């Protein structure tokens, strides 16, 4: 089998029930069709996940998927995707992260490492030149992911790179993360999938090298991209980090506040990067192979450093009505320790705060704006005590239990809690959030870019917003499969063509921008097909009732209304633009392009 540059042409599939492993060939047509990362991971799910399998069952696979760019000097390329059926949504889920784990994992000689089965005891899966094997995770079980990672590298040696789960993953909280190097493959509960397999961590050690088809071209491209990565398009991430969004979003009524009862937060300035960076900023870090350096570390009250991003501050701050930076930093650190997705944790707690204030939950201590209550709620999620069992289900399932109309304000799509982008004042993003395969997420649909670009009226969703949602979803599909960091997106002027050039240099394929656009559509469709297989219905491509029935007023006095009719028209437009039928299902002819003929293997 011919193997293109940048690939090994195989995945390692490990059954942790008994530690056995087998190689799954990845034919070149599949690699070219899905590239890597989220795309290839979706194909692997089609190939390896039994239809209808419980995500937390032994038979459900979880894949660490690398990409052809990993191991090259291209900036931000040290990324990987963790892909599985989500226990939170019951649909396809891919979460990306950046670290040396990506490089060491790929250089074990595999384009993906797939874990399935269930270990009889808490274990660590090791993969290196010697293949796969399991070791006891007893000493690390119960530890925060970062501590487990540190101890494992002490035990195994510094050449090992470790992705670990925290206590929340062990307890199978369906929004638990997979963590490594202080970063998280955060959304959709992949930590619970690993925890359900009794696998505390996966450790990898590089064993080989991988060659690019045109090394000089890759080097030249890397130099060029590196230079561009220092330009104004990345200045925001470099200088203030994503927290720079917070005060700006507040100014334009786009900051979800108190469980989407408002889009501005009067106390937002207390959490603003513009001031906190000066008062609390202590360090700036970069992911492996990254020249941007978006990671900003702030000092918490106890003196420890906390990695602060817009999404964790939004979710644990304004979303819960909490404005004390020490409370927000402490809550963020608590999520890191437990291995919890901050967006889902914050969203679920904000929903619970509203339930408590409405008398739907008997928890008088749980109130908007109370930082201590926020921390207590997180502790209970971690321990399973008190309200923890309920809140650990996520807002969708918790609302089904609590009832009382609370589903109308449970802040999720497909079960995944909404990120910090107010759909009523960002109509392109509203559509992106509604239709995306992963659920409500800002990394798989970046349609907010169009809303915030000035090219359309963000309060008047229509045809232009549909086009923007399709385009940004396509771009995300390619970036998440190459994989390149989205913080680079502003440096590309002809993204599909430029990405195709990078891919050509690494693989030797004569791929161009047109082919990569088709690749994007294929990946988006393949995700939708997986969801269809797992029980998706048209009702899943929708937003919470609150967002469609309660209006907002922006600073100018204009009313921001996202009505069911407007959303329906945009969803219908999206289906048409994607070549789907009126119910969002693809025609038979479209399926021929998916390369699923290789699924039967």
């Amino acid at each position: 089998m011919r193997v293109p540059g940048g690939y090994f042409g195989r995945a390692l599939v490990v059954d942790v029930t008994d530690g056995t492993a087998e190689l799954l060939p990845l034919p070149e047509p599949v690699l070219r069709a899905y590239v890597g990362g989220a795309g290839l991971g979706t194909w692997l799910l089609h190939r390896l996940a039994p239809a209808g399998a419980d995500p937390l069952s032994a038979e459900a696979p979880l894949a660490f998927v690398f990409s052809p760019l990993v191991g090259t000097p291209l900036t931000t390329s040290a990324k990987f995707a963790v892909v599985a059926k989500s226990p939170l949504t019951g649909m396809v889920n891919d979460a990306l992260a950046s670290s040396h784990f990506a490089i060491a994992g790929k250089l074990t000689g595999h384009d993906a490492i797939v874990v399935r089965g269930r270990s009889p005891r808490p274990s660590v899966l090791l993969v290196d030149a010697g293949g796969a094997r399991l070791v006891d995770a007893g000493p690390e079980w119960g530890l925060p992911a970062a501590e487990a990672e540190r101890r494992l590298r002490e035990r195994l040696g510094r050449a090992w790179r470790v992705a670990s789960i925290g206590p929340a993953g062990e307890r199978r909280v369906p929004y638990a993360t997979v963590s490594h190097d202080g970063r998280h493959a955060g959304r959709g509960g992949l930590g619970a999938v690993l925890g359900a397999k009794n696998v505390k961590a996966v450790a990898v050690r590089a064993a080989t090298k991988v060659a690019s088809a045109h090394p000089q071209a890759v080097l030249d491209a890397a130099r060029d991209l590196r230079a561009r990565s220092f330009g104004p398009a990345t200045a925001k991430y470099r200088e203030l980090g994503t927290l720079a969004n917070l005060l700006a979003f507040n100014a334009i009524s786009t900051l979800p506040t108190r469980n989407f009862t408002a889009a501005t937060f009067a106390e937002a300035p207390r959490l603003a990067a513009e001031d906190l960076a000066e008062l609390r900023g202590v360090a700036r870090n970069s992911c492996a192979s990254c020249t941007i350096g978006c990671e900003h570390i702030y000092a918490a009250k106890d003196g420890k450093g906390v990695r602060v991003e817009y999404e964790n501050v939004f979710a644990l701050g304004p979303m819960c009505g909490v404005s004390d930076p020490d409370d927000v930093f402490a809550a963020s650190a608590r999520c890191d320790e437990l291995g919890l997705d901050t967006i889902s944790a914050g969203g679920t707690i904000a929903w619970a705060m509203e339930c408590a204030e409405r008398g739907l939950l008997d928890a008088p201590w749980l109130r908007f704006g109370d930082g201590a209550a926020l921390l207590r709620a997180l502790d209970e999620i971690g321990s399973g005590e008190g309200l923890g069992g309920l809140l650990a289900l996520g807002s969708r399932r918790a609302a089904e239990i609590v009832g009382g109309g609370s589903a109308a304000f449970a802040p999720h799509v497909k079960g995944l809690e909404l990120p910090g982008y107010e759909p009523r004042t960002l109509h392109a993003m509203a559509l992106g959030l509604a239709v995306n395969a992963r659920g409500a997420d800002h990394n798989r649909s970046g349609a907010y870019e169009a809303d915030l670009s000035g090219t359309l009226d963000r309060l008047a969703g229509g045809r232009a917003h549909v086009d923007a949602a399709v385009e940004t979803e396509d771009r995300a599909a390619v970036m998440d499969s190459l994989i390149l960091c989205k913080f680079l997106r502003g440096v590309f002027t002809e993204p599909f063509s430029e990405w195709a050039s990078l891919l050509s240099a690494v693989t030797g394929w004569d791929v161009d921008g047109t082919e990569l656009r088709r690749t994007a559509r294929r990946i988006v469709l393949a995700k939708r097909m997986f969801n269809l297989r797992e029980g998706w219905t048209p009702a899943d491509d929708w937003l919470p009732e609150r967002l469609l029935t309660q209006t907002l007023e922006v600073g100018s006095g204009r009313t921001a209304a996202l009505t069911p009719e407007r959303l329906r028209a945009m969803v219908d437009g999206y289906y048409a633009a994607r070549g789907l039928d009126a119910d969002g299902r693809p025609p038979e002819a479209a399926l021929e392009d998916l390369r699923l003929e290789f699924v039967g293997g």
Partner: protein
Amino acid sequence: MGAPKAALEWHGSTLLRRTVGIVGRAVDGPVLVVRAPDQPLPPLDPGVRVLDDPREGLGPLQGIAVGLAAAAPDADVAFVCSTDLPFLHGAFVRRVLAAFVEGVDVVLPDARGHRQPLAAAYRTALAPRVERLLAEGRLRPAFLFDECRVVRLDDAALLADPVLAAVDPALDSVANVNEPADYERARARPAPQVTVQRFGTLAGDGHGGRRTLRAATLAGAAAAAELVLDRHVVAAVNGDRITRDGETPLAAGDTVSFLAADAGG
């Protein structure tokens, strides 16, 4: 005037561009511009609909008829104004529209001692009636008002709105320019006072916080705030639509937020 009013320069933009922009910010529906056949117009936002008035020389009612008929499918009520109102404020437009209640056909400001039929609000269903008046040769707006239910707003009634009273206490919104001297005087007045705030990376080097300055357009505000509206900078006026169009008009009391265009994360 010696020159078409629509194209008169206004702080780097044009009078028509300003009027269209101000009205557009104050209404929910589309903005329509009625012009004489083949009359050249300065560049306008692509969302503005330009209508050709088929008949010249019939006075303001003719333009009103064309505009109301075209607006009728989208709106029950339309604010109608001439292009030569360099100090028209969105608060004035909103105040007039707010007086429109059930049973009313026209809200007619009677400001600064004059009736203001070209700074008034009309029910779009009046279009056929206006056409009839035109056919009868009754070309003055007063003929229309005689057979309509009209709410008149004098200075006191207009300024009862605290927002309008704060931003346009002299009701300059209805000050028009008919002679070159009017234009020169208007142009010589200082630009409106607005508040600007730079966010994120744009707030670095001591540029954070709110700042008051004078600017008639977004480009003017950007320049005064030491910014260039390039692909990395966008702005929102009063927290509303995002734009990098430098000709976006500003009015007294506006707040301009300058944001890094590279949103996300």
